């Protein structure tokens, strides 16, 4: 095995993981500031310019807090649970292409960590495994609130995984591939070639987005940590950095879900207009910028919706998942298949 591709891969992983970490820190600031603005407050604005250094202060606070271990908890699983949640959500981002194939110093570098033929399945598998972190946390805490949170999480994520996967099948049919880089490549040119328009996937887009919110446990689907009923759900008993890992896992899962939505439906790193003569670094910078801008919009949407919509009731959640989204996603697959068969797409 040659050393150079290995080093390039490690480099990509290092850079992407660090950018995600900084993004998570930035998002906690965005979340608190935007929620404050929505509620006519100011939010954290004291630490650094406009409160931008607040996440660092939070980080220091998390590290220096006391680690607690509830009596009667299952210690190995209790320690392992945040790690599972964090690692799986970080792994899922590996298949999201965040830029084109670029050339640096004579080496071609594909700006996606894992360019797998079944890449989209990899993302679904990793998010599917993410539920173990929550379930383990709920069970290992030996606390009724945490257990209820874990139970809810497992039921909710299983239910919405179906709708999520089926909605994505529409895109697979329209693009004819499961490889994220190929899905992006079919959406080149004007923005009406994007799958949401050119692939007739508007319904699939809405289903995927809603199911994605449920999959990342964000409001209005944050039943596993509903604070009015369950204190804090599955992470009730967690303190200091272990709690922080759960929070980072949630934000990284948001980044992954946003990245998947952009890749599947909104042209990935394609800027939405023909780039013509543009080549080399200006083109690559434009494409990476386009991806970042689209991802940024969806991250803002996550926050916006969280502070706008109230939480679902548990039976409403299950009704929506099984009786509305799931049949709708099936119908979407059937319609897309017919459209593909008659060469409309």
């Amino acid at each position, binding site marked *: 095995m040659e050393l150079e591709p290995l080093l390039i891969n490690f480099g990509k992983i290092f850079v992407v993981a660090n950018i995600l970490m900084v993004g998570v820190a930035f998002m906690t600031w965005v979340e608190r500031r935007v929620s404050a603005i929505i509620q006519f407050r100011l939010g954290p604005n004291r630490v650094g310019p406009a409160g931008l250094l607040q996440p660092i202060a939070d980080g220091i606070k998390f590290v220096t807090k006391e680690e607690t271990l509830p009596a009667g908890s299952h210690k190995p699983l209790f320690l392992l649970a945040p790690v599972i949640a964090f690692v799986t959500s970080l792994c899922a981002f590996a298949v999201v292409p965040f830029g084109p194939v670029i050339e640096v110093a004579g080496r071609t570098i594909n700006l996606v960590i894992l360019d797998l033929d079944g890449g989209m*399945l990899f993302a679904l*598998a990793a998010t*599917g495994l993410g539920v*173990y972190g929550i379930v383990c946390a709920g069970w290992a805490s030996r606390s009724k609130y945490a257990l209820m949170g874990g139970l809810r999480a*497992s039921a909710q994520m299983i239910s919405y995984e179906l709708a999520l*996967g089926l909605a994505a099948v529409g895109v697979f049919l329209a693009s004819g591939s499961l490889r994220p880089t190929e899905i992006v490549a079919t959406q080149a040119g004007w923005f009406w070639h994007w799958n949401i328009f050119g692939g007739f996937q508007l319904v699939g887009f809405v289903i995927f987005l809603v199911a994605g919110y449920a999959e990342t446990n964000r409001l209005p689907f944050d039943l596993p940590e509903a604070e009015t009923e369950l204190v804090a759900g599955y992470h009730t008993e967690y303190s200091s950095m272990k709690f922080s890992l759960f929070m980072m896992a949630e934000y990284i899962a948001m980044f992954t879900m946003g990245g998947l939505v952009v890749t599947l439906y909104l042209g990935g790193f394609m800027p939405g207009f023909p780039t013509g003569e543009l080549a080399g670094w200006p083109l690559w910078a434009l494409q990476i910028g386009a991806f970042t801008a689209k991802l940024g919009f969806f991250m803002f949407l996550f926050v916006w919706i969280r502070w706008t919509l109230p939480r679902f009731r548990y039976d409403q959640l299950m009704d929506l998942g099984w009786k509305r989204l799931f049949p709708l996603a099936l119908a979407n697959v059937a319609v897309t298949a017919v459209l593909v068969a008659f060469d409309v797409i």
Partner: protein
Amino acid sequence: MDSLQFFGFVIFATLAIASALVVVFHRSPVISALALAFNLVAIAGFYMMLNAQFVALLQVIVYAGAIMVLILFVIMLLAISNEAGLHKSGRIQTVLAPLLGIACAAALGWGLWGVGDANPLPVSSADFGTVNSVGTELFSTFFYAFEVISLLLVVAMIGSVLLAKRRL
């Protein structure tokens, strides 16, 4: 099998065997279920090493990501705390289980004996195991088997719905 592949095989084999032993011997049903999920992921690692990435990913999505989560859900919902009661086995089991286990191991061992080194696996083509090639095989070579299995699954689904919901 080059050295890197061998290294991977040893790691996955150790993880798979260790987690399988935990499934059988651990007294807590939740730990057993978690170990089984881990075992399924380790097996997916084998598939990945054999270039069967589509099967590997489906294995993780369907078995580890869905079925095992449901099993865990049921175990946790029932809150099985009386762990000792679970390990009582009837007389038939104590006699039949070892016999069947030995028979199963013998059958597998007999099958492995015949393979040996003399009969290496054919070198796979570049697109072996991709979604495209698996799909093409399913809908050409194995078309009838595939359709029969899907029919079987539909029957099983209708049956389970009927069992769960007596009055429709």
